[in-house]
């Protein structure tokens, strides 16, 4: 092998080694990011407060959501005691309006 051929061979090996190092660096960085993300999960800011007396659930979301994602789906429940007939004068009426 002449000196010129030996020089070309050396340059090819250096180039290959450089490419492998670049790939390894990127892969290592990615793996490190995943590990950090798993070890240190992020926190979301609390939802904006509603007015006093608010009882509706308002889950926080950073993106627009469809209506169905926010509607409370707790089932309708009966009162502790059902209405019973009474002879007293009513204080209020329940009827159509």
């Amino acid at each position, binding site marked *: 092998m002449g000196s010129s051929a030996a020089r070309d061979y050396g340059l090819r090996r250096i180039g290959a080694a450089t490419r492998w190092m670049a790939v390894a660096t990127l892969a290592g960085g990615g793996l490190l990011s995943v590990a950090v993300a798993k070890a240190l999960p992020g926190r979301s*800011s609390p*939802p*904006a*407060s*509603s*007015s*006093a*007396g*608010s*009882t*509706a*659930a*308002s*889950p*926080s*979301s*950073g*993106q*627009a*959501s*469809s*209506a*169905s*994602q*926010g*509607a*409370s*789906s707790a*089932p*309708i*429940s*009966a*009162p*502790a*005691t*059902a*209405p*019973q*007939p*009474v*002879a*007293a*004068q*009513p*204080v*209020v*009426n*329940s*009827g*159509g*309006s």
Partner: protein
Amino acid sequence: MSPAATAPPAGCDLAVTTFAAIGTTATVASPPAVHRDVVGVLRDEIRMVDEACSRFRDDSELAAVNSSAGAPVAVSGLFLEYLEAALRGASLTGGLVDPTVGAALRILGYDRDFAAVAAGAGGGSGDEEPRPWRVKAVRVPGWHAVAVDRRRMTVSVPPAVELDFGATAKAHCADRAAARAASLTGQGVLVGLGGDVAAAGEPPPGGWPVGIADDHAAPAGSLHCTVAIRGGGLATSGTTVRRWSRDGVELHHVVDPRRGRPASVVWRTVSVAASRCLDANIASTAALVLGRAAPEWLEDRGLPSRLVSAEGRVLTLGGWGR
């Protein structure tokens, strides 16, 4: 209208105040010592819901959303709460009680405060020449069309979609007022808002007596019955009140979202009790829309109910006392 005090029920030491508000009647009952504060809470809650959710005020948040042509609109926490209440109604009923009926109601003629609608309807004087007019079905887009960004507190609806909280807002307002007044005073409170009744705190001995009628403003002689409740909510929905005529066709305000027109009248009045007034009203409105399927739907949920058919037949379910 100035407040009108009415006599408390016999044997109960209660103060009762009734006044006109948001196109209907508001009533509140409580022990006399705290009554002034309780009335103040109810007035405050009514003012807030009117400012946020009225379909007939140009400056309400609801009007801003309805006229936004699809753009997100920043809303208050209170508006979001009432929207959530309306969406809960749609979710629990599979869309039978849907807040996107606003355009349908407007096109059917309910496009301003109801007193003006009724006054402009002609009252069926008989002088008008009958015209062949058919109720036009209006497509109801459905509650899934509403986009809510709870973090940014914005709401958007597609162009031409109009929200109406008429089926849930009064009931939720009654719940809020009763809970807030009871918490403030430590006393039992009963709130009635256009026939939607909410109780909070310790009830009087024997419970809160509530008259049941087709029309919440009916005189004592027109009541179907009187029942006692001890807490939660009691709501009555009906098709005999808030009716109007358009070109000789009688209409009412309970729209069936599946058909985009007033619900068929199988039941003229449905009363339901639940753990809160909002849910009672969701169920009573759904029952009107369901028609013949309503008894099974109510029984499946174990809700004490009283249904009056168009012919006047009474059906009670779920332990509602007879």
